[in-house]
């Protein structure tokens, strides 16, 4: 059902331009990778704090408030560069298990981060229930790692 749409994406002007260039795909992929590093730092520093590592003398709320603009900014950069990469090989993605795995993990990770995790941190629930804070961090790390695993494996499939 979605295949005609994926095929249309690949035959779009943007998809064809990236496909026809030797350096456009690697350059966009590099931007995507730098974004990966930024988002990893912004997610890790908060989850590490919830697990009791890293900036332990600051509250999780304080750490998260500082990391949030970098997390959201890098997420925007990653989605934008990711859409460009997708356009150039949409048909391959359609048949790729890692691609669907990555998109499902990404949707879950975004929903979890901006609903449950946000609530735990905003209401300082991690201070009253340390186990809840740790569980939140582990789910968050698991979901984001799923995104990273799928992302790297699209290229190998």
């Amino acid at each position, binding site marked *: 059902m979605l295949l005609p749409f994926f095929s249309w994406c690949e035959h779009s002007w943007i998809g064809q331009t990236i496909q026809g260039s*030797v*350096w456009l*795909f*690697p*350059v966009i*992929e*590099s931007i995507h*990778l*730098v974004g*990966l*590093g*930024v*988002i*990893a*730092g*912004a*997610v*890790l*520093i908060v989850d*590490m704090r919830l697990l009791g*590592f*890293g*900036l*332990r*003398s*600051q509250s999780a709320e*304080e*750490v998260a408030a*500082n*990391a949030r*603009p*970098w997390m959201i900014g890098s997420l925007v950069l990653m989605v934008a560069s990711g859409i460009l990469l997708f356009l150039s090989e949409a048909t391959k993605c359609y048949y790729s298990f890692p691609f669907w795995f990555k998109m499902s993990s990404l949707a879950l990770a975004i929903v979890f981060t901006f609903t449950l995790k946000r609530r735990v941190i905003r209401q300082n629930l991690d201070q009253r229930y340390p186990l809840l804070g740790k569980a939140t961090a582990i789910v968050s790390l698991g979901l984001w*790692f799923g995104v*990273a*695993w799928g992302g*790297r*494996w699209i290229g*190998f499939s």
Partner: protein
Amino acid sequence: MRLHESHYAYPLIESVHVWCMAAFFGLALLFDLRLLGWTMRRVPVSEMSRRLLPWTVVAFVVMVLSGSLLLFAIPLRTYQNIFFRTKMLMLALAGLNVWIFSSRVYRRVETWDLDALPPRAARVAGALSIALWIAVIVSGRMIAYNWFDCDTQPHSAIIRSLAGCTTPDSRN
């Protein structure tokens, strides 16, 4: 070397390399951004250093080990890869920046530990660090796409000499 032909080993090692890069760069970046006064402005610089840098060291060690395996899987072709050479140069410059920062600027950290905006020398070190690590990541990603490969001719004389090509120039 068999590593490059292995069905799982090469992709797995490359994945570990990328994931360690993300953890290393992300945490190092937060420290550099603190030096620039762009995040965690109320957290002492020494606390950022003490709490975060040990993790970056662990990620860096795993990254060097996995990176060495990737190099030894495809040694000659990589050695003659202009992007690999760029990456090693940027890595050396990034290391030099860390050395200058820790041996000069950071030694007097107690005088500016709580500054929301650290002194100029610290900000310069932070900005240089971010720029150099981005250069390492970008040139690293290009290694696999090398469109200046010595075997895909022709290239200009300057590219051939920078890449250390030993194959005869196809234009002769």
